[in-house]
């Protein structure tokens, strides 16, 4: 592994027993909380966080310190700290790993946030699908309370802070903070317009600071080691590290944590060990279902918030899916759109209907029914959906389409003009063919064919009649000699 890997957010994962608070404390756990509540003014602590340059790890990358400052400046009798643990990106599971492996770092950070903004109550909004994380959080909360690190009068400072869990119920859009807050209130998780921002009017109408799990996991170390230490890691505008869930067609899959500014090449080839089965790298999708696909030409781009956006993708929560030459980018775009269609809340028209239409267009193209006009429509529709949607989901859902149009236009053209899928994925564009060299004339394929599309004498070459073939693939499954191919 290269020196680009650096574990800050994941520092304790795997190395301590998450069910024993003693082990967390032994690694300087809760030291930062003590330091802050007994020795720092909220303003001073927030300034430290601003100086560190930490930005939100959940998606858009808003400076965390500023977010706290806004919440601190909102005047109200009751404020809330919320941890967004509704990790919904398919292919990303860093939040779950942190909550399961190092729950106390999140609790400690929430308590620091509470002290800084003036809140005595925190909630963790967590996916109900994460039972182990829920169990460990419950243990951690009760241990922290027993140890006086949560609850009344923490470190005899007069500061009190308590944390409860709220459960998500399977709605990706609830990762958006206003939707998350509505869901916490027992409502449909529909986003609402900002402003007002949660920092002014959030949970139950009170000022609320929402941070993502990974963001929070960074905070205790920042207070322990200082803003200077943190701000020296990473690039000019993106400080620290980022956890990625590396998956797809690479040899080494799993969670990695790298310094901001690491290139995609380092991640995929050095850390990921290159593409599986010696195949050719084609694209990497970052930012989850609404991120974009980056290609060969982006491999040496240092990863940070700005660069990813400039290249049509985004940091998102850190999913990173690698694709090889066998992946059809039109199908990939369609796959992501299907996700967005499923997860659209339905509140605003562009996202509710627009994504559906985008998906239908991609479906047509994959089936060989697309036209040049459809390609133009794809782009216009994608841009309008981005431009007019209510929340981050709709504003980014066309990214997979737009970025593949930008980077793999010729693949779209093949589907539309030549009615071919170069990667050999889109079944409707493929035809079954029997290779003369491999066919032994065993008749297995002809017997398996449900529509009698295959003819041939015993021990002689068999032939597929493509006019009858329904492309069920039964012949290919039955052939023991790899004679049936799709081309």
């Amino acid at each position, binding site marked *: 592994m290269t020196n680009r890997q650096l574990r800050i957010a994941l520092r304790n994962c795997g190395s301590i027993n998450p069910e024993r608070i003693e082990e967390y404390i032994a690694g300087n756990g809760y030291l930062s909380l003590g330091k802050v509540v007994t020795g720092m003014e909220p303003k001073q602590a927030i300034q430290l966080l601003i100086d560190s340059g930490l930005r939100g790890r959940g998606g858009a990358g808003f400076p965390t310190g500023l977010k706290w400052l806004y919440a601190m400046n909102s005047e109200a009798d009751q404020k809330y700290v919320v941890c967004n643990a509704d990790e919904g990106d*398919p292919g990303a599971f860093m939040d779950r790993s942190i909550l399961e492996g190092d729950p106390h770092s999140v609790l400690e950070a929430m308590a620091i946030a509470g002290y800084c903004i003036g809140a005595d109550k925190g909630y963790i909004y967590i996916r109900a699908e994460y039972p182990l994380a829920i169990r460990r959080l419950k243990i951690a909360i009760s241990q922290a309370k027993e140890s006086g690190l949560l609850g009344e009068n923490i470190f005899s400072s007069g500061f009190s802070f308590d944390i409860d869990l709220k459960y998500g*119920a399977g709605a990706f859009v609830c990762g958006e903070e206003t939707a998350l807050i509505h869901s916490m209130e027992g*409502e*449909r*998780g529909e986003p609402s317009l900002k402003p007002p921002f949660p920092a002014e009017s959030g949970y139950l109408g009170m000022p609320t600071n929402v941070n993502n799990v990974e963001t929070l996991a960074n905070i205790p170390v920042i207070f322990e080691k200082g803003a200077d230490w943190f701000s020296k890691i990473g690039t000019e505008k993106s400080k620290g590290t980022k956890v990625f869930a590396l*998956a797809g067609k690479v040899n080494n899959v799993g969670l990695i944590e790298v310094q901001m500014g690491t290139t995609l090449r380092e991640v995929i080839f050095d850390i990921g060990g290159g593409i599986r089965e010696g195949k050719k790298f084609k694209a990497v999708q970052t930012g989850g279902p609404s991120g974009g696909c980056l290609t060969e030409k982006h491999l040496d781009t240092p990863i940070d918030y700005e660069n990813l956006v400039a290249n049509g993708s985004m940091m998102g929560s850190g999913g990173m*899916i690698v694709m090889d030459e066998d992946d059809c980018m039109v199908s990939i775009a369609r796959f992501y759109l299907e996700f967005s269609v499923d997860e659209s809340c339905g509140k605003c028209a562009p996202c509710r209907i627009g994504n559906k239409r985008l998906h239908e267009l991609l479906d047509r193209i994959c089936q060989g029914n697309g036209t040049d006009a459809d390609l133009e429509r794809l782009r216009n529709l994608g841009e309008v959906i981005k431009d007019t949607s209510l929340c981050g989901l709709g504003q980014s859902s066309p990214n997979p389409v737009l970025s593949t149009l930008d980077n793999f236009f010729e693949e779209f053209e093949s589907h539309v003009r030549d009615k071919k899928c170069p990667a050999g994925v889109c079944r409707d564009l493929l035809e079954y063919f029997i290779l003369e060299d491999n066919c032994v004339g065993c008749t297995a394929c002809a017997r398996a064919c449900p529509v009698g599309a295959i003819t041939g004498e015993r021990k002689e070459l068999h032939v597929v009649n493509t006019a009858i073939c329904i492309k069920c693939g039964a012949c290919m499954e039955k052939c023991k000699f790899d004679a049936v191919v799709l081309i």
Partner: protein
Amino acid sequence: MSSVKIELRKDQVEKIHAFCDQCGNEPGELINILHRTQEEFGYLPAEIQEVIADKLALPVAKVYGVVTFYSFFTMIPKGEFPISICTGTACYVRGAEKVLSEFKKLLDIQVGETSADGKFSLSCLRCVGACGLAPVVLVGDKTYGRIAPDDVKEILEEAGGARTRGQGD
């Protein structure tokens, strides 16, 4: 969302009331209450939603609006062996879709449905965080990794000796 008609017993209603009471009968706790109720009953039929709405003094339409918003909540009882196929991105690029269509074919049901004998139900979920094992299938609490369409029949047989389509009819 389709549903089944049931009649609740007195003790079942009391149980739901108890969940509501424990949450202070707060409308804001609706989602937590739905979670606990579904955990208890396995699903959330109309009758249960009516009891909850009544107890929390909420319109039933609102409770239904919340239930139908979240994919975790279901109004159909799951099968004895609930099958979930991960269709997260990592699993997708490694062929989850083919696995899913094999399940649909063998069970002769669509996603979100339960087989006629009540044995199997089919659902998709988004990433269980086991991307290294992609594609992943869950049967109840049991996880199967690196599944190919060919493995599907075996999984079903192992789970419950499924009578699959094409056999014996």
